[in-house]
């Protein structure tokens, strides 16, 4: 189904979730940390299966919501909407180009940030959006994009040790 073994995919998710939840702080620079879950969603939509990206987004969003302290469900909805957009646009992009993947991560990280803020703003009016929000979202997204361009190669080699297996599904 995914062009690779289910066991490998399961291990991949386990490691990613474990790393993001428990060791994500290691990648923190100047208070910014990359959104590994978003990178995984983009990677999933680009490389593995774009149709199942929203489902993956829901699962990852729920996991994040369980361990976050923000408004419960906001991450899930935001990730889901992003994944839907990604799955739609991924067809029209050069999915093999790592820079394009990085750029997509940047755009969708921004979108995720703003969607999340919008949801919070609608659901919880007591939390106003700070003046630095726009800059913070750009820095954060840029860092995510930088990490994405590098880490996606690693994901690919891990899940598809033999490059010929990548089908770039339509």
């Amino acid at each position, binding site marked *: 189904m995914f062009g690779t073994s289910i066991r490998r995919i399961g291990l991949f998710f386990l490691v990613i979730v474990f790393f993001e*939840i*428990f*060791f994500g*702080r*290691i990648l*923190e*620079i100047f208070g910014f940390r990359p959104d590994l879950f978003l990178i995984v969603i983009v990677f999933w939509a680009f490389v593995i299966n774009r*149709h199942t990206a*929203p*489902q993956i*987004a*829901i699962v990852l*969003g*729920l996991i994040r*919501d*369980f*361990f976050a*302290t923000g*408004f*419960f*469900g*906001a991450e*899930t*909805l935001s*990730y*889901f*909407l992003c994944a*839907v957009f990604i*799955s739609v646009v991924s067809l029209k992009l050069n999915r093999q180009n790592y820079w394009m993947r990085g750029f997509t991560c940047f755009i969708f990280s921004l979108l995720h940030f703003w969607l999340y803020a919008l*949801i919070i703003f609608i*659901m919880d009016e007591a939390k106003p959006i700070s003046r630095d929000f726009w800059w913070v979202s750009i820095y954060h997204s840029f860092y995510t994009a930088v990490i994405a361009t590098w880490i996606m190669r690693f994901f690919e080699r891990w899940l598809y040790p033999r490059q010929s297996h990548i089908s770039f599904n339509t």
Partner: protein
Amino acid sequence: MRPKVFILFAILAVMPLVLSSVATPFPETMRSFSTQTFKPVFQTSDFFSDHITGIFTKGRDLFFAYKQNQELRQRIASLETEVNQLREERKQIAGIEKLLPFLRKNPRTITLAHIIFRGMSFWEHNMVIDKGKKQNIQKNVAIVTHQGLVGRVIMASSSASQVMLLTDYSSKVSVIDQESRDIGLLCGDGRKLLRMTYVDLASTIKVGDTVVTSGMGGIYPKGIPVGKIETVGTDKDGLHLFALVRPFVNFSKVEEVLCLARASGESDYSSWS
């Protein structure tokens, strides 16, 4: 993705949000459960994360240490300058406070001036102050401090004036012994001590007496303290006594002075007090 499946997942994605807004305790219970369950993992991961990020943080700190060091040095230099300026201002204020009794006694004619230059010639003992004709400082205006007489203005320009000190060779001031009331002429001779001459042989001046201005001559107001008598003797001609007077003012340390300018239309000082 088929529309029905998409709608199903969309509902699934919105569900937690709706659930948390309708049933508030639910997410809190779930989160506290997950936190409690994964507490040991959190602790362990935190320990490792701290160590790993600590390495990065130390490296980053080291990288920025030079720049920070430079910035801190600049800041220290700037603060030191500020501290020095404040110290200087404090000293000036302390000096001015000491001058207040003079200001209260003769408020209409007094102008505060700062010394901007000290004469370096052996023969001419003078200094320049930062006030001139614009501030109503004219020639022969008496210059004093809270300690006593300093000298008089010998040349006034628009915004600065030259002051002749008591120790100058050309300086001559009519003085009176505060205790014996004997009058004499105080002359400068380029040294620290001033020479009081033309004192009557029958006078009772003695060492330790205070000498003040007599008010004669019309330049210096009467009663300005000048100094203390240190030595008394007979002049070479044998007709008069002389006294060596140590001035109250240390001329090398004076920073602010008072210019006792005459009020317009006033020809002479009536009284110091």
